[in-house]
């Protein structure tokens, strides 16, 4: 038991040394760190927002509206398709957030109608009887769509919030429909909140020139492949001439689709093909600049990614002489005539913009459209000096706690055994630091509390061992034998005791968020590493000590 082979001693010492090495960047003063290689000096533990100062938001995505919007779009398509297939129907309605209900005039057409609808979206589950068909997203499909929306939102938030790349935000998914956004070091959150809550949906569509050629602004019918979209000029004009109508459009709930606006209020509109040539998601970059000629109007220039570039190139080559409409948030900003194939992967948007508008729009285009509205349901801001106070309180508590435990162990088990336990406790602290640096975990104020707790709990293993050694010694065993059996017999209680606390730590990690996770991390990590430091590491120390001192009687 205490006759460790040399290789084992070396491995244990090696692990200990490695931990010290990984933990050191957290402990060395800045003056020393600057002389060390950068990769080493910067591999330190992140401080949580409560210690570092910063803002923390819990955002909830309005997934219901997103699904409603999709179902509304779908209902338009279904209507058109049923007409095309000459299936008479009474109505197509959207059942909030879940399903589409089609009521047919004739039950006999049921199968035909279902086939026509499923051709659009095969993921819909069909139910209902007789002349009503209910088309709902399956539970699985709903989950998939929700996940998609959240993932997309996270990606877009990241780009928006950290445009400059200096804020180091942490953005993570929380549950089904929430996003946790943490931005260290900022105190004024007004700007940030504004960036969070904007949508920007850009699409390019070809103008249906056949319909446009008829000269009617609002044709009676348009083919199902085409829809009407108001132009920005048209909307501005409507607002001037008919403020009441404009007001109604703004306040309509549910929101009117572009086609509905055209039909009801008849602003200047353009018939465009529904098929999206290129969407905002294929934009690589966009900038606010000024036109070279024509008095230098503010314009937005953009570049496509390769897929977008190819699609744009193909579409422009095939449609020279036709107009390409640029739709932003339900309005056509401009519809320039395609002069030649545009294959360079970039282009410009002109329109009646102010400089400020081009700047904002280009930022939004750069970051893409948010698929859902985000509401802040939890927010906290911590000033930097509050964080500094917390760090100080935490550090003092940790130092005092460690010192008290160390004194206690020295008194109870003497300089040798107390010393070994205390050395193990320090190694344990270093291992926790090292583990957190490697895992990239954040240290929070509750995390420091967890650290202090593990200091007290780590020496418990040594207490169990030493008490058992005392017992074995009292039974009349030799020094060597009491030590060996003491270690062996204490192990099962040590493992049981640590594992039960670890169960609590792991469940807490699963349940908690933010600072509480920090607590669960240091506690669990500390318990795990203490199983090494308090047993394996001290056993190595003892083995070396026994070989060196060859004690005949134990002073314990």
């Amino acid at each position, binding site marked *: 038991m205490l006759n460790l082979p040399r290789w084992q001693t070396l491995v244990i010492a090696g692990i200990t040394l490695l931990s010290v090495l990984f933990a050191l960047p957290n402990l060395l003063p800045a003056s020393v760190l600057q002389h060390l290689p950068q990769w080493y000096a910067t591999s330190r533990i992140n401080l949580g927002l409560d210690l570092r100062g910063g803002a923390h938001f819990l955002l909830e995505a309005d997934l219901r509206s997103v699904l409603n919007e999709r179902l509304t779009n779908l209902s338009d398509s279904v209507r058109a398709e049923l007409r095309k297939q000459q299936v008479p129907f009474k109505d197509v309605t959207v059942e909030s957030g879940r399903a589409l209900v089609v009521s047919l005039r004739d039950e006999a057409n049921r199968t035909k109608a279902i086939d026509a609808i499923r051709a659009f979206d095969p993921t819909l589950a069909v139910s209902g009887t007789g002349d009503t068909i209910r088309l709902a997203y399956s539970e699985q499909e709903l989950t998939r769509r929700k996940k998609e929306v959240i993932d997309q939102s996270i990606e877009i938030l990241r780009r928006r919030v950290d445009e400059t790349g200096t804020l180091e935000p942490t953005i993570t998914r929380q549950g089904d429909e929430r996003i946790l956004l943490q931005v260290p070091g900022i105190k004024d959150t*007004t700007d940030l*909140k*504004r960036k969070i*809550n904007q*949508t920007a949906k850009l699409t390019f569509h070809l103008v249906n020139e056949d319909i446009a050629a008829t000269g009617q602004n609002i044709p009676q019918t348009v083919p199902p492949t085409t829809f009407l979209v108001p132009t920005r000029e048209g909307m*501005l004009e409507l*607002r001037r001439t008919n403020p009441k109508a*404009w*007001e109604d459009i703004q*306040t309509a*709930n549910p929101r009117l689709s572009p086609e509905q606006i055209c039909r009801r209020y008849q602003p200047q509109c353009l018939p465009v093909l529904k098929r999206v040539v290129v969407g905002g998601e294929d934009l690589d970059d966009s900038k606010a600049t000024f036109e070279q000629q024509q008095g230098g109007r503010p314009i937005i220039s953009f570049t496509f990614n390769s897929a977008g570039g190819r699609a744009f190139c193909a579409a422009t080559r095939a449609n020279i002489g036709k107009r390409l409409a640029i739709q932003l*948030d339900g309005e056509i900003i401009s519809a320039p005539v395609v002069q030649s194939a545009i294959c360079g992967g970039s282009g410009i948007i002109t329109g009646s913009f102010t400089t400020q508008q081009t700047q904002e729009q280009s930022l939004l285009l750069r970051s893409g459209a948010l698929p859902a509205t985000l*509401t802040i*349901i*939890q*927010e*906290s*801001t*911590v000033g930097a000096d*509050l964080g500094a*106070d*917390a760090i100080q*309180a935490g550090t*003092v*508590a940790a130092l*005092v*706690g460690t010192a008290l435990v160390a004194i206690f162990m020295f008194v109870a*088990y*003497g*300089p040798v055994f*107390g010393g070994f336990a205390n050395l193990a406790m320090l190694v344990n602290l270093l291992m926790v630091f090292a583990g957190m640096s490697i895992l990239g975990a954040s240290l929070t*104020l*509750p995390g420091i*509390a967890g650290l*202090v*707790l593990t*200091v*007290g*709990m780590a020496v*418990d293993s040594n*207490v*169990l061992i030493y008490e058992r050694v005392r*017992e074995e010694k009292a039974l009349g065993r030799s020094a060597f034998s009491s030590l*060996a059996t003491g270690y062996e017999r204490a192990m099962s*209680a040590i493992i*049981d*005791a640590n594992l*039960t*606390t670890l*169960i*609590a*730590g792991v*469940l*807490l990690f*699963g*349940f908690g968020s933010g*600072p*509480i996770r920090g*607590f*669960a991390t240091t506690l669990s990590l500390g318990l795990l590493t203490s199983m090494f430091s308090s047993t394996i590491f001290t056993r190595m120390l003892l083995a070396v000590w026994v070989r060196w001192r060859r004690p005949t009687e134990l002073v314990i």
Partner: protein
Amino acid sequence: MWKPVHVFAFKRKFDFLGQRRTALILSTLINIISIVAVFAVGLNFGIDFKGGIAIQAKAKDGTAELDQLRTTVGALGVGEVALQEFGDPSTVLIRVQRQEGDAQCVAGAQRVMQKRAGPGWLVKPGASGTGDVEFTSPTPLDAANWRDAVSRAGLTLQERQLPRGSTNTARIDMSIEQRAEWCQQVAIKQVEDVIGANYEMRGTESVGPKIGDELMRSGIWAVIATMFAIAAYVWIRFEWQFAVGALIAMLHDVISTIGIFVLFQLDFSLTALAAVLTIAGYSINDTVVVFDRVRENMRRYKKMSMVDLLNQSINETLSRTLMTSATVFVAVAALVLFGGPVLQSFSVAMLWGVIVGTYSSVWVACAGLVYLGLRSDSLRPADDKADKADETEKAGA
């Protein structure tokens, strides 16, 4: 060099389980009182669970005038306001109840706009049954300026909600729930406006109405799951009676800890819940140490009466039970004394947890074994075999 001091070495053997009836009554009483207190007096829930606003402010001139603050903030019409000194006399923690998003809040938003954007601003609620809010500006504004203006009231506007061209009014449509969430921001800004001249805002926290209930539910589940997971572990390692004993001990510790939260009206926040979970996990440590010895003695003394065997096991492990608790106790004491106001309720609860955990391992878990009818011969065959191997090994040593 000094000699080790055997801190908890007692010459005398104690008849712990002789007192088991007294302990049973005491424990039952403590638990009943705790449960009754939770319902009769109630926990002092932190905003994590209750929803609401917490603002930490520091007086610029050194001392926070609590009475004066109470009057100023109370006059805002933001509902219930609670103040407490936080850490030192210059710092105050202002807690405001969670906002409901009613007309009061819209009126508050108007005050904020008038203070921050200009005296001519008006804010009115929109159509009833919706959460809409209508802003009126003294001068016509274009889209970008609108966004700027309303962001001063903590409201973020979506691109599609912005008025086109320049207008005097803008209606922002929100659902009732969305408005309630926004109203938390409005309340924070109102408090900022009235105390900002004399106080520095050190940190703010707001929890909307939705989160609290969810956290509460998942928190309760986490505690239950932890206790059963630990009991399951004990069951795997020991006989079923041990698992039940451990479970009862954990329940006892958790319930009485919650009782302590009621008694001292400690802030019951997420950190407090972390303390409860940790206590469930840690208080079992001492129990497991005693159980380990009980099992060992059961193999050795098959004829001994259970009460005597338990008493002997407890006495044999007494010094380590007390020593392990003492090390954690001093560490937690450091947290209580120096950890600062944020960790206060966590540390106090932990301190109690360490004490009650030690008590329960003897008088709840072990006494429970007696009541559960554990007998010296109820070891599983597998556990009994381990005994033989143990004996052979001992003979060889």
